């Protein structure tokens, strides 16, 4: 743990926000995400448990929760994506990022580069709009055509 902490403190691209017994909260720029993910993967943080997205009007805050389950250590990575910008996908390094990033795209509209299959997952395929943004229109278009089925 001390080894990781000193490595993070000496790194200029990483800012440590809070630090508890076995849980760190770090803030990074969104173009540094692949580097820090590789670094943490080397330190046995093998699982990506969840990705939380919060809409802050002009930008969207993404929080990745990485875990080293066998040793009970956690890291919350915080980064910001401005409206219209993209961020790299982590689906090569963490397999659970496949569906988690699809969910963030479906509900918030954040585009992930190099994702194998970035399509809607919870809403129907012909749904228009990103519903969980704060300025989503109330009358989002719904498809009520009974002869329409979804094929892959």
């Amino acid at each position: 743990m001390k080894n990781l902490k000193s490595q993070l403190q000496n790194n200029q691209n990483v800012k440590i926000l809070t630090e508890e017994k076995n849980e760190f909260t770090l803030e990074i720029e969104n173009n540094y995400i692949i580097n820090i993910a590789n670094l943490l993967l080397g330190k046995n943080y093998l699982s990506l448990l969840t990705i939380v997205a919060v809409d802050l009007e002009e930008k969207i805050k993404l929080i990745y929760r990485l875990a080293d389950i066998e040793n009970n250590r956690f890291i919350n990575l915080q980064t910001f994506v401005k409206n219209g910008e993209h961020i790299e996908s982590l689906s090569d390094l963490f397999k659970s990022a496949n569906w988690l990033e699809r969910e963030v795209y479906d509900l918030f509209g954040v585009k992930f580069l190099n994702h194998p299959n970035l399509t809607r997952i919870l809403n129907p395929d012909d749904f228009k709009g990103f519903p969980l943004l704060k300025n989503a229109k109330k009358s989002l278009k719904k498809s009520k055509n009974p002869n329409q089925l979804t094929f892959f």
Partner: protein
Amino acid sequence: MNFITAKSDKVIKWARKNSLWPLTFGLACCAIEMMSTGASKYDLDRFGCGAFRATPRQADLLIVAGTVTNKMIPRIKTLYDQMTYPKYVIAMGNCTINGGPFSEHSYSVTKNLDEIIPVDIYVPGCPPRPEALLEGIFKLQEKIQNEKS
């Protein structure tokens, strides 16, 4: 020689109402109460409705138990069309009647089931008790007995 005479109409309706075969179509929380009704404490088999069939071609009662979302509408329509006449529909739970707890601020829930398929009996509750579902089935049996054929 012993024989009983009756109108064929009444005999056919009596046979039909005492052997309704439901389709396994539980969507959400109300499905668990439907399963409890079919289990041993509130036995549904003693009223003839115990044989849950998996395919719509062999069923004549569709109990829609749970919330209907927009993505599910084409499938419900297909299932209803695949059932053969005479067929009946029970709308179970508040979510199928008018949206239930999801009637406001939701972008993906269909508020009214009877805009999609014609409904015979509504059973309110969130979720309705097994006794309430049994009462709904009794009302359906009364309705079948008094139908004009």
